[in-house]
């Protein structure tokens, strides 16, 4: 599997994502700068966590209008996989590849801790290695992770089974305890928790490994 990690000014989980991808795939991903107007031919694009453009205007707003995102949108429209983690999720919602908005946490606090997640879908390219019944533990680290969508949009998301991860104990006020969603075509995922920080190498439980193994699984 060939993967690219997009690097924005202010990305700070790009190397963690690269390290996680290398650990699972045995191949270092391509690192692509936000001003690049070419996306190499890859199977997966990762939009990493961080504070792209200092969260100016709104989290993800500037990054969503950067040159490389036009190519990322083309990749997604052609069926290529895109995973947005934390700030990457904010970018995907700002660019319109995913519905909703990530608003300021309801408690106004930056939340940084491991959280339990229910995996709602195991039939996506991002989650095929998980078992539906057992909650997993993945860290969150964000100030703006409070998922908001209109009631109609939420109903549509639920009816179409687009909610992939749900918080067991909601840390940020997200509607319907939503931690991660996919688009209707199941090839674009956004999630606030950081699977690349749960790779079993830092005393964590390693529950992020199966996320990356799921992605790899589709390309064996």
């Amino acid at each position, binding site marked *: 599997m060939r993967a690219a990690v997009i690097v924005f000014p202010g990305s700070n989980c790009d190397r963690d994502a690269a390290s996680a991808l290398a650990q699972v795939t045995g191949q270092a991903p391509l690192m692509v700068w936000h001003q690049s107007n070419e996306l190499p031919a890859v199977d997966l694009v990762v939009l990493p966590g961080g504070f792209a453009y200092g969260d100016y*205007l*709104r989290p993800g*707003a500037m990054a969503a209008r950067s040159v490389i995102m036009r190519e990322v949108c083309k990749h997604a429209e052609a069926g290529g996989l895109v995973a947005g983690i934390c700030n990457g999720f904010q970018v995907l919602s700002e660019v319109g590849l995913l519905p909703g908005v990530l608003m*300021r946490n*309801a408690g*106004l606090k930056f939340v940084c801790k491991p959280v339990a997640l229910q995996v709602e879908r195991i039939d996506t390219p991002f989650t095929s290695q998980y078992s539906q019944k057992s909650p997993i533990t993945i860290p969150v680290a964000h100030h703006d992770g409070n998922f*908001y969508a209109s009631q109609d949009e939420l109903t549509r998301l639920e009816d179409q089974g687009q909610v992939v991860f749900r918080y067991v104990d909601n840390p940020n006020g997200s509607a319907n305890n939503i931690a991660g969603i996919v688009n209707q075509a199941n090839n674009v995922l956004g999630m606030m928790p950081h699977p690349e920080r749960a790779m079993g190498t830092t005393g964590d439980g390693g529950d992020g490994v199966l996320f990356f193994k799921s992605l790899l699984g589709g390309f064996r």
Partner: protein
Amino acid sequence: MKAIVHVRLKPDVLDPQGQAITGALHALGFTEVIGARQGKIIELDLDGTDHNLAKERVETMCGQLLANTVIEQFTVTIED
């Protein structure tokens, strides 16, 4: 010309920052405050003299970047 853009959260969107402001004002003794909503003002310096055209273009800018219309609404005022 100048454009003054007010960006506000839509009325039905919860504003935790506004709630915190209300709470802080109460703590300072301003108990008459029953609610606060936080938004932002963006001032644009514009080339040109046609107010109507400017308003139209700034509204397009709002839709494309300055506001996220899923949660926000905006008003545009053009000044000389």
